[in-house]
């Protein structure tokens, strides 16, 4: 097991490098010159007498390295073997600068420096760390809530397939699954943040105005919780159907197996058969879903974060793409890639823990 984990971790940098190169090329293909956009003050984008200074544009392009080629290498015939050419890499290119730094303001991604945001002039790591917690918090809350509700529903449905509960829960959850999140979020707002109906939750934001520096932890939690209710419900509702149906199908598959029949034949109560024998064996697909939770948290949800004014990663990524803020977008790609790989590694480990039959040792 340790060997397997170690081997997987060794592949991380190679995968990340491939991801970085691919995303770097894709990113640069988006139309729009960030230096030119930076030069136009937002107030002036539509102002009839604004001036764009060519000198300033050139300077800014040089500063961002946008005047350099994306990659710079040459393939030349090898002196020793004419059939295998050699590749000479040069440092004056955008990728090298992003990867290894510019020797002045930026130490490069290889040293953990994501650079400075073009749009806000903040260090990217600072920008992301100020935004990621809301996305992670909401993702965690919604996953816990989704599992808390879905697993019992899936279990109960599997215990009596075709029953009224099974059919009605299936129908309701399928309807919920079909509702677009922007519509559902707006519906919740109109129902529960509207003085014309019920005004029990705030309509936007994640905390009250005025700062909470002097409040105790309990006061802060109490103040913040009402802001998180509607977004959490919106994050959660669509995954209820998916998880509960997955649990139901897995358990039904397990219930058909011989060892369950044996357990029943021994006279074990149906409830114990379900919980002790079937459920644990039905966990694998549920674990697979869990591995995707954290990358999703990094990505956030643009729509939900926009509607509820949550300063999370989804909105940050959207704004970064809109502003062609390359350092932020690249940082998000890399972090998401790393977390996705870690998520899958953890789920592999959890597989082995959940099902002792799974082994990552090579068979002789």
């Amino acid at each position, binding site marked *: 097991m340790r060997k397997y984990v170690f081997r997987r971790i060794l592949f991380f940098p190679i995968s990340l490098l491939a991801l970085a190169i691919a995303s770097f090329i894709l990113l640069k293909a988006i139309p729009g010159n960030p230096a030119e956009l930076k030069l136009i*003050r937002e107030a002036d984008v539509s102002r009839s007498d604004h001036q764009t200074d060519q000198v300033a544009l050139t300077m800014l392009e040089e500063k961002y390295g946008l005047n350099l080629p994306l990659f710079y290498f040459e393939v030349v015939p090898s002196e020793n073997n004419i059939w295998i050419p050699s590749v000479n890499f040069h440092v004056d290119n955008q990728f090298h600068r992003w990867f290894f730094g510019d020797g002045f303001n930026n130490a490069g991604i290889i040293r953990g420096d994501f650079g400075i945001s073009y749009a806000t002039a903040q260090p990217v790591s600072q920008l992301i760390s100020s935004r990621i917690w809301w996305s992670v918090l909401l993702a965690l809350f919604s996953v816990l809530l989704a599992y808390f509700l879905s697993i019992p529903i899936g279990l109960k449905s599997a215990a009596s397939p075709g029953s009224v509960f099974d059919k009605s829960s299936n129908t309701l959850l399928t309807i919920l699954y079909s509702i677009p999140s922007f519509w559902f979020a707006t*519906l919740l707002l109109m129902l529960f*943040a509207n003085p014309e109906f019920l005004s029990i939750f705030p309509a936007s934001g994640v905390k009250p*105005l005025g*700062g909470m520096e002097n409040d105790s932890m309990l006061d802060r939690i109490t103040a913040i919780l009402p802001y998180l209710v509607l977004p959490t419900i919106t994050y959660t509702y669509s995954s209820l159907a998916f998880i509960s149906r997955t649990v139901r199908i897995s358990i039904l598959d397990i219930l058909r197996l011989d060892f369950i029949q044996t357990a029943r034949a021994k006279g074990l109560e149906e409830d114990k058969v379900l919980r002790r024998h079937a459920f644990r064996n039905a966990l694998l697909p549920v674990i697979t879903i869990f591995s995707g939770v954290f990358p999703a948290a990094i990505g956030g949800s643009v729509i939900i974060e926009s509607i509820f004014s949550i300063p999370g990663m989804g909105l940050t990524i959207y704004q970064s793409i809109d502003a062609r803020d390359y350092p932020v977008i690249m940082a998000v790609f890399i972090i998401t890639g790393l977390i996705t790989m870690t998520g899958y590694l953890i789920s592999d480990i959890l597989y082995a823990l959940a099902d002792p039959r799974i082994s990552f040792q090579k068979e002789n």
Partner: protein
Amino acid sequence: MRIFSILFLAVTIFLFSCGKSGKRSETSDLNLSSVILLDDAEDFLPGWSEENRVIMHISSEPDNLHPTNGNSLPRLEINNYIHGFILRSNLEGEGLVAELAEKLPDVSEDGLSFMYKLKSNLTWDNGQLLSPSDVIFTAKAQKCLYTNNHAGKSYWNKIETITADSLDPLRFTIRMKEKNIQNIAFLFSFPIMQESFHDPNGILRAFDFSMLDDSTMDKGKSGILQQWATQFNDDKYGRIPEHINGIGPYKVKHWEPGQYVELVRKQKHWNPELQLMPDKIIYKVNKDENSTLLEFRNQSMDASMSLSTGTFLELASDSSVRANYHLILTNSYNYTYLAFNMRPLESGRLPLFDDHSVRKSLAGIVPVDKLIKVVYKDYSSQCKRMATNVSPLKKEFNPYVKPLPYDPLKSSQQMKNAGWKDSDMDGVLDKVSDGKKISFEAELIYLNTGSDWKDMAMLITEEFGKHGIKVYPIAADIRTFVQRARAREFDLLLGSWGANALPEDFTQLWHSSSWKNNGSNYSGFGNDLSDALIDSIRTELDQEKRIRMVHRLQEIIIDEQPAVFLYTSLRRNIVHKRFGNVKLYADRPGILLNDLRLLSVSQGKTSP
């Protein structure tokens, strides 16, 4: 089943509430004044908050609050309250008014030197007096090659030098490199910074103005300058409240990223009206239209100048909202236009709009009234039709130039005269040009930032289609839109320009050089006469002469019809009635929040 019933009920209520119609609010008739003063509420209603803080809605967060390095609109607005400016735009009238200066400058005979005198009692937060050295430092910092104010440098590079008066410690003279009508006006949007705060060691004092934009400076000196600029550019001066320093009446208390920026009124300040101003101004970010609507229904926001038209109309139709808020549309200097690509061959496009008779005939089939109706619906009568490229609010507007009337029959005939006929009966006009048959098929680019743009683009597509012109509407985000416009990758372009009350330099929009250097002359308008006129307007300091020239330029532009000028944009304003002294301006930012006065409960009048 119970769950279903609840869900059904909820959906029904939601749909019912969405479709509800009510009486529209009464909004004042718009005239062409630059300011409207609203009547204060007679009674302070029991449900109104007595907190003396204004919560202002903004739809996007400022990029930062650095005094020089930033380019977002919210940053400019917020910096208005944190910083001081030598001059400000006169929102209630025309031109400029002095703020930190005693009065507008004395101009030398050659029109290049501007002598200012600072007011005598102005102090920074640490008690230090504002002096010309702060102004000189500000100009040097703006001009320095290594500071990150790339958007503003072009204005400051026009300064030759600034000298402090050796006899009067408050007097200084700005010497410009060349004559320009904006040599005074450019100062109004740049705040003055405290030298001892940003440059305590006086590094910039060792550099005179000519050295600051010299890229050939020796390494030793440029190294010192770069070192200072790295400090100056630090993000903390635009984000961390303790490091944001200005001479304005408010300071930043708290910035919750993505949520709000809180400004608090200073305890001591040189402004005599300080005590009357709101205690706090909070800029709250909300980009979603529905939750913004609910925020106003819940009275958790006090004001907005940036509501979407749909949200404004929805709020205006709600009697409970009308009881709590002033809802009013006001004129602005901004206008919407439909531009033609006049130089298609130079930009690799089909020759559709190079003939000015075609452009004129198409101007006659643009349904301007319908477009205004699409955007402003029941309030369309308050919207002014644009006749030329100058807002009717400005004194430079030429009242004798009239827009071409909507006349489809005449337009069809003009198109035939120009050689465009549907010879193959496929419903699209065609013409043989240089031996090749070309169909009248045009790409129309427009912004994807709101449904209004899309509705207008669809209406134009439909209307042009009726006359045999096939239009392909293409929505673009603002970055792509600007890039395509500058690369001239369009046949038709639906956009808007902003302006203010100050004298306008028409070079960027209408000079032919601005076509050649990929500037904002998207249409490609310009000839020797118009270029000469624009050059003269730019340097003419005699107002009457300048206005006559601007009138002439408008005549030439309308004759050439590089664009159809559609309508002046209306600003959608909402302000809570618990505040009095509400003045709404045509010019940006539309309202000055520090002018608002909380109405007292007992008196129902402006509190002392």
